[in-house]
């Protein structure tokens, strides 16, 4: 029997009664919520869910928010929730699911992603981090990069090469890596903004027991597709109010500072305001399609659209500020837990948004994906398709 909205409300009320948010510790409440199946209702029973339709999560969230219950700070644990969890759910053994999903969801264990490498960016499948079997363990050596939250993480999802003698996609295996292993070294990677959101991660003789392999040996590329597809789903589901994004601070400045206005900036601002509003409609239309159970291919385009808009709008904002645009708020090296677009000045937004067209797939690669998968145009030539990884040019 499928759980409906009324039943979810009843169970939520029960949870709130048994664990009143006002008198319950945050971790205790979150664990109780997980055990009640109200964490992510579309997950199976016993793993934080009730096998209910995903769209009904909003019912639970609204009830809990109204009751002042704590949440699991989803932005802080986005990689765990959005990428590691769906992959563990799909490919994990029963023991793995039981062990990892609960502390992942409550935020007690933060996750990071060890995918990209200095030599494997857009061509992720060419990665060279090696995992070699030794008894019951895999011994891992290599270097990963652009790893957000690595300095906070207890666990990582990791893809590594287990067979160099087959073509690149075939020789990869997916692991769950303990970030406290002595062979894991995390170094901050300072960005053009001055801070270090992400890291380089050096893996030296890291021993991963075979029980922490996810999926079959050599099947890691397919397992990783679940991770990467869920990354894109997570980008599509948002609902923004009018002037809810990057356009907000520049519109505010425009209204409050008439002395900064010029005709050229006015035309450009209006064009970007309109484009932001239209992108908001497109995101809302995508959301309505998902709710109606008719997911469209539009999601592939949203990241492209928002990357360009964020960059153009923040660039305009720097220009609008004139003399102040020549200044920068703070170059101090920091280790932020979250990307904070609104708490900083225009110059920061301008520099940070440059990453929007690179992180999670460059805009160029996304345009290829749209052209090939949505429009059905011929794929790029794949000269490496039948070549053993060890024989590839690098």
């Amino acid at each position: 029997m499928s759980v409906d909205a009324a039943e979810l409300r009843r169970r939520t009320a029960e949870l709130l009664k048994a664990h009143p948010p006002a008198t319950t510790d945050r971790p205790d409440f979150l664990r109780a919520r997980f055990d009640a199946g109200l964490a992510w209702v579309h997950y199976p029973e016993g793993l934080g869910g009730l096998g209910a339709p995903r769209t009904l999560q909003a019912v639970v969230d609204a009830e809990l928010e109204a009751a002042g219950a704590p949440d699991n700070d989803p932005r802080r644990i986005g990689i765990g929730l959005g990428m590691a969890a769906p992959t563990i759910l799909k490919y994990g053994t029963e023991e793995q699911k039981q062990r990892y999903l609960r502390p992942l969801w409550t935020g007690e264990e933060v996750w990071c992603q060890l995918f990209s490498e200095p030599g494997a960016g857009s061509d992720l499948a060419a990665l060279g981090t090696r995992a070699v079997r030794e008894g019951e363990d895999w011994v891992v050596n290599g270097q990963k990069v652009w790893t957000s939250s690595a300095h906070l993480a207890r666990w990582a999802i990791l893809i590594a090469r287990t067979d160099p003698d087959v073509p690149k996609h075939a020789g990869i295996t997916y692991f769950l890596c303990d970030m406290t292993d002595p062979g894991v070294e995390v170094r901050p990677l300072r960005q053009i903004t001055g801070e270090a959101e992400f890291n380089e991660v050096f893996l030296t003789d890291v021993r991963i027991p075979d029980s922490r392999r996810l999926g079959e040996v050599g099947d890691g590329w397919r397992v990783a597709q679940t991770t990467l597809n869920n990354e894109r789903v997570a980008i599509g589901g948002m609902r923004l109010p009018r002037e809810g994004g990057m356009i907000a601070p520049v519109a505010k400045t425009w209204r409050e500072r008439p002395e900064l206005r010029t005709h050229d900036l006015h035309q450009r601002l209006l064009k970007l305001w309109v484009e932001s509003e239209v992108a908001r409609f497109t995101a809302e239309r995508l959301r309505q399609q998902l709710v109606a159970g008719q997911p469209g291919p539009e999601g592939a385009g949203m990241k492209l659209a928002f990357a360009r808009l964020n960059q153009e709008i923040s660039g305009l904002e720097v220009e609008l500020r004139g003399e102040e645009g020549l200044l920068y708020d703070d170059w101090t090296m920091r280790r932020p837990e979250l990307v904070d677009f609104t708490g900083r000045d225009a110059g920061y937004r301008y520099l940070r948004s440059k990453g929007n067209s690179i992180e999670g797939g460059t805009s160029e690669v996304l345009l290829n994906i749209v052209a090939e998968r949505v429009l059905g145009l011929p794929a790029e030539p794949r000269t490496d398709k039948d070549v053993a990884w060890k024989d590839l040019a690098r």
Partner: protein
Amino acid sequence: MTDLLYSEEEEALRAAVRDLLADHCDAPGVIARTESDAPHDLAAWKALADGMGLAGLLVPEAQGGQGAGHREVAVVLEELGRAVAPVPYLTSAVVATEALLECGDEELLGRLASGRTVAALAVGLHRAPGTAFAVARLENGTLHGELTGVADAAAADVLLVPAEDGGLYAVQASDATVTPQVSLDLTRPLAGVVLTGAPGRRLGDADPAVRRALRAGAGLLASEQLGLAEWALTETVRYLKERKQFNRPVGGFQALKHRLAQLWLEVVNLRAAARNAADALATGEDVDLAVAVAQAYAAPVAVHAAEEALQLHAGIGMTWEHPIHLYLKRAKADSIAYGTAGAHRSEVAELVDLQAP
């Protein structure tokens, strides 16, 4: 929140209109018609209006219409745009009809809804909602003067003429001299209207009627532009998969793939903006902003789509024989119709308080 999807009924309506246009408006026929004595396809119009009852979608059932709404009209316009169909739908069943709805003229509304009478609002196609427009003089109770740039006037039985006294008048086309102008858009030609003592029947106040008519025209034009842009994208993708140069399909070159993917993204955005405008017109909520945003966005996308179609078809796209030029001409004319994107951006500036320096 605005419903941005298409209902099952709307999809069924789309399929029916598309079938009808496939029978009536094939590209060679439309091209040949542009240089004939009858640039408007009155057989297609009769099938749409009389056969399917689509001319009365905006008119309440009590007044002889279908009592549907702007969302359905938008779907019809998408298909008409996709076919660059030379029928006076936007001008008569939307713009003139909205003016009559504002005036509350039941007799004429009923005739327009049936499709047996075609009307044209005698205001230049380039006028944006809320801006000034030319008016006829009143002398001894009859109308005088010359009004130019009136879209589809040559197909109209009745002209809705604003006059200097602030009234909107119904004038029989047979009482005026309607002269076709050589128009950029071959499938929505303009005409000049000369009035020399034409009798007119006062319908109501011109200002609110014209404003409402042009606002609906601008908002729903976005759906026509969407259909047009979709045709350009789909047809170009289809052609580039077939066309081979350098021993491979031209559509496999990354430079072209990226341009088509960008265009796809623009079309996806345009669909959301056009649906938002149609839904706002239907519900009456936040209409001015929804229309201004849609028109500020739509025109450049439709023009870009048609221009890309031409460039990526290359040589064949420059020929009179290939229909791309009909779409380019329509798209470019549409970028002026009911106000340019710039005019609509200025409207946005007023509505959301982003004032000019």
